[in-house]
């Protein structure tokens, strides 16, 4: 006989709104965001931390929602791609992605915008060498663009 799954309360702020939910202890943050909150802009890719499509902001720092439990965000604040354009750096970067060809299929784009916004907020991207820019964005893979468009967009948004 299967024991019913025990649920735990989870209270957090998501894109500025207070959310209360009940989740099993083993629920991953990415599944909570996509399936329970139905915010599907956050993607699931490698599930081992390397690709970055599951990136969200947690208390203003980018984290991977695939290697974190939902309950770890109790009492904290997350921002997903759906709410990220409230940050000025993201709004600029989104427009620059369109102008500079920062995407093709678009699967990686929400992750790129989360990681790119975090980078723009902390560093002067205009002053960065190309190699440093690539290292700073390491772990945010794109299988379409070859990264040139993404780098151009980051530099444009930084101006």
């Amino acid at each position: 006989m299967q024991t019913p799954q025990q649920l735990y309360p989870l209270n957090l702020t998501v894109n500025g709104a207070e959310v209360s939910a009940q989740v099993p202890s083993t629920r991953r943050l990415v599944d909570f965001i996509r399936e329970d909150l139905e915010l599907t802009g956050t993607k699931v890719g490698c599930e081992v931390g390397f690709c970055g499509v599951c990136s969200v902001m947690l208390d203003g720092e980018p984290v991977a929602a695939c290697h974190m439990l939902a309950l770890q965000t109790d009492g904290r604040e997350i921002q997903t791609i759906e709410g990220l354009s409230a940050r000025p750096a993201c709004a600029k970067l989104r427009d620059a992605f369109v102008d500079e060809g920062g995407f093709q299929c678009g699967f990686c784009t929400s992750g790129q915008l989360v990681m790119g916004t975090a980078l723009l907020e902390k560093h002067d991207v205009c002053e960065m060498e190309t190699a440093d820019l690539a290292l700073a964005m390491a772990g945010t893979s794109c299988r379409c663009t070859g990264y040139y468009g993404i780098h151009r967009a980051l530099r444009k948004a930084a101006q």
Partner: protein
Amino acid sequence: MSATYATPNTVAEACELLTAPGSHALAGGVAFTMALTKGQVDPASIVSLAHIHELHGVKGEINGALTIGALSTHGQLLRDKRITAHEAQLGEMFADVGNVRVRAVGTLGGNLAYADPRHDPAPLLGALGASVVIESTTARRTVPVADFATGAFATVLHPGELVRSIELPARSAETRIGWCKLQTNSLDDYATLSLAVGFEESNRRVTHPRILVGAADTHVRTQRAAALLDGVELDAVGRLASEVIEEVADVLAADIEPSSNHRGSAAYKRDLVRVALNRALDRTRTHSPQAGTFR
């Protein structure tokens, strides 16, 4: 499968909960959540350490020793001036752990406790003579980082014990440290091989040599190789004779047991030991940063 979830506020409470069969500590959750995804763990209970105040933060002693709380993240440590003042290569090493997301949540305690042989901190901390402070409901004990992992994904931790802190001893002016991480894939990937060497320089001779190898897929016994360095002469600029280095590299290459994988063949990794040893020894004399480090 239904795992319970607890958020104790003290080490004592956490240790008590961790004595139960099937209980797992949760720190940053990086390794734990991936193990869940892969079906490698089926926890009966999850004990989150996040609310335990005493596991957070770095404390400095007057003599320069540092006590690093188990929940310190890689990101916090690479930005901590006391850590980089103790040894600049620690800053580089933490800056090179995975990517910025991993560094934001992954903790040093979790990194050591998971004991993945590809991890970076253990070799360098071991060369620096650091120790792991382990606590249970009944006792506290201290184990050198070099002896903490007993094999791949295996440590000296017993059920009911947790890592409280990592202690870096006061640095003596005679301590020489060199670290080298070699990556064959992208720079955010795990090391293909890493190596740290440490010794005390006394009257232009090597004393108390230690060598730690990471990412060789198995627990590495380096005592045989390190012993070859004991008492060896250093030249005017702190170099060892190249014949000695060759001999040490040969013994290391024979004693590590790498497996062939997408990061390179076993034979290639044995060859890399030679490269890593030479570079690490070079860095015991100079303090130039390794290329490809972004913070």
